[in-house]
């Protein structure tokens, strides 16, 4: 079908923009900033899946982002230390490598943990919470409290986690200097490709029967139960997938920015990510990605000019979007597109299923 072809063409175009045009046009440090936005976009993709498709408003994605980031950071720290204690442990008064850290010296283990740990924890939480039909606002508030509690826990265990400082000062990222321009280009490409692949996988999931089921759970969880499915399972799986995506995003964030710290995982950054998804358009995965990139870009460039004003703008943008365009930028685009199509064709066009086109 042509719509399908058009979708692929669009995807190819965007991919070319990110993989060819951007690297040529941008200096390395701007590319590095873009890579940071793409990391957030990966986490946003997970939110788009859990919230946009599954109706689970998760305000604690920072937790999973952090778990992935710390898994990666722990490996890099151990690698840099080369058998000694990581620097922050020395000044935190730890004299022996904690048992929790030991396996992270192995890169394979660490990379696996980036995905596995968030998925396992999300699954556990999901089983506990969804089985008891905690949902909607309750779920949102619980995940928010989870983020708050997680940050406090991380900060409090300074010898284990680096406290508020987090993990930083990495010298060697798989044989490369993380601050070198060439490394920044490489991590950019890796991040962009990972985002692309995860986007395609997520899109496949949305289009699959499971994706339809997920939308059904979002719109009528109780009804789904009477179709013979257990919504708790559907939600737990989705929540776990979105957690895994956040974990991958966090892991990529470490080489891109060179730090992982609790301030990234707290209530506000987690919320900001959800906000970005809402502004981009929560009901489509593309909207989630677009929102994360655009909002973070806007935040950086705005705070370069007008630091205090950013909060007003962010707040106002948000109030405006929620009130006037709850389907976000993508929703606005679709409305405009449909309006134009209707004007071109005097015959009333059939109302298209406006949800989830891509």
């Amino acid at each position, binding site marked *: 079908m042509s719509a399908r072809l058009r979708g692929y063409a669009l995807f190819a175009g965007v991919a070319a923009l990110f993989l060819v045009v951007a690297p040529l046009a941008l200096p390395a440090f701007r590319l590095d900033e873009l890579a940071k936005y793409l990391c957030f976009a990966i986490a946003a993709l997970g939110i788009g899946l859990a919230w946009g498709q599954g109706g689970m408003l998760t305000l604690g994605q920072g937790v999973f982002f952090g778990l992935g980031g710390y898994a990666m950071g722990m490996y890099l720290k151990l690698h840099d230390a080369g058998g000694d204690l990581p620097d922050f442990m020395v000044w935190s008064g730890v004299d022996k490598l904690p048992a929790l850290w030991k396996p992270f010296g192995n890169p394979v283990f660490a990379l696996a943990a980036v995905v596995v740990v968030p998925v396992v924890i999300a699954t556990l939480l999901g089983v506990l919470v969804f089985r008891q039909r905690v949902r909607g606002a309750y779920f949102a508030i619980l995940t928010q409290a989870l983020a708050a509690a997680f940050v406090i826990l991380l900060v409090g265990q300074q010898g284990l986690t680096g406290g508020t400082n987090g993990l930083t000062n990495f010298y060697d990222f798989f044989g490369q200097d993380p601050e070198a321009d060439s490394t920044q280009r490489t991590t950019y490409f890796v991040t962009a490709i990972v985002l692309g692949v995860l986007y395609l996988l997520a899109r496949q999931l949305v289009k699959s029967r499971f994706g339809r089921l997920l939308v059904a759970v979002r719109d009528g969880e109780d009804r789904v139960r009477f179709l013979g499915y257990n919504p708790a399972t559907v939600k737990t799986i989705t929540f776990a997938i979105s957690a895994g995506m956040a974990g991958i995003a966090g892991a990529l964030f470490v080489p891109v920015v060179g730090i992982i710290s609790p301030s990234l995982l707290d209530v506000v950054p987690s919320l900001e990510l959800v906000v970005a998804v809402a502004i981009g358009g929560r009901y489509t995965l593309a909207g989630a990605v677009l929102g994360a990139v655009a909002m973070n870009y806007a935040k950086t460039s705005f705070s370069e000019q007008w630091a*205090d004003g950013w909060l007003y703008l962010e707040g106002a943008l948000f109030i405006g979007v929620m009130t006037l365009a709850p389907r976000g930028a993508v929703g606005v685009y679709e409305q405009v597109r449909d309006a134009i199509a209707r004007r071109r064709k005097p015959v009333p066009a059939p109302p298209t299923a406006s949800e989830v086109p891509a």
Partner: protein
Amino acid sequence: MESLLNQLPVGLSIGAVLLLIALGLTFTFGQMGVINMAHGEFIMAGAYTAYMLQDWFHGQAVIVALPVAFVVAGTLGWILERAAIRHFYGRPLDTLLLTWGVSLVLQQAARDLFGAPNVQVTAPSWLSGRVELLGGNLPYARLFIMGLATACVVGIWAYMNRSRQGRRMRAVMQNRELAAVSGVATGRVDQLTFFIGSGLAGVAGVALTLIGPVGPSLGTYYIVDAFLVVVAGGLGQLRGAVIAALALGMLNSYGEFWTDASLAKVIVFVVIVGFLQVRPQGLFVLRSRALT
């Protein structure tokens, strides 16, 4: 042992603070299903009201501020309800994000109006004493907060159960459509409910000037705790909120006593998740046959 006993009034007073900040939410969240993230900033508005009134009332500003802050914060809430929230009924999660945007704007506005640093609100001199109790001492300021929380609870209970307006409010909460066809002006009830809920936040803000910082970030320190109280207590249940606030207060008090402040917060979270395993809808829940 002595200090163990002394943690009892401490727990009660923490509970009173939690209750005070959460009471408004039993209206806005409980009765109307609006997750008002700007609740914290309404608390802040109350605190700044006390600060502003100092110019005229000096040491007694806190007392004068109680009713004034109720009206100020209530009005802010009323404006919010009229301007935005009324378009959002039935979409509780969207209200969460909307009001978060509002809270950002209010925080920045406070920063621009009053400056980024904290300001000082002087407590009335007659609140500076303390009573000896169970081997420790309980400051009058804490007693005042407990008294205020009790007064608010009694007032709300009387309003909900004894006044015509309160009964209307409950009717709307239990069945909006039915109440509407029975001739209740649900829009008016919503406005009033939101006014009261937000106003209570203002009252809490005034009380908090006695024990905490008064600055643009004030609201952010309390908002998560406030929602946890309502979640644990059960939606819209005054009884639940009271018991949950006191229980969490005790848990905080003894949790911190035996471990430390950081771990106490983590313990509270774990206990709440555990508790929701047993009572997914909180302590008390209204039964409804509606299939959502």
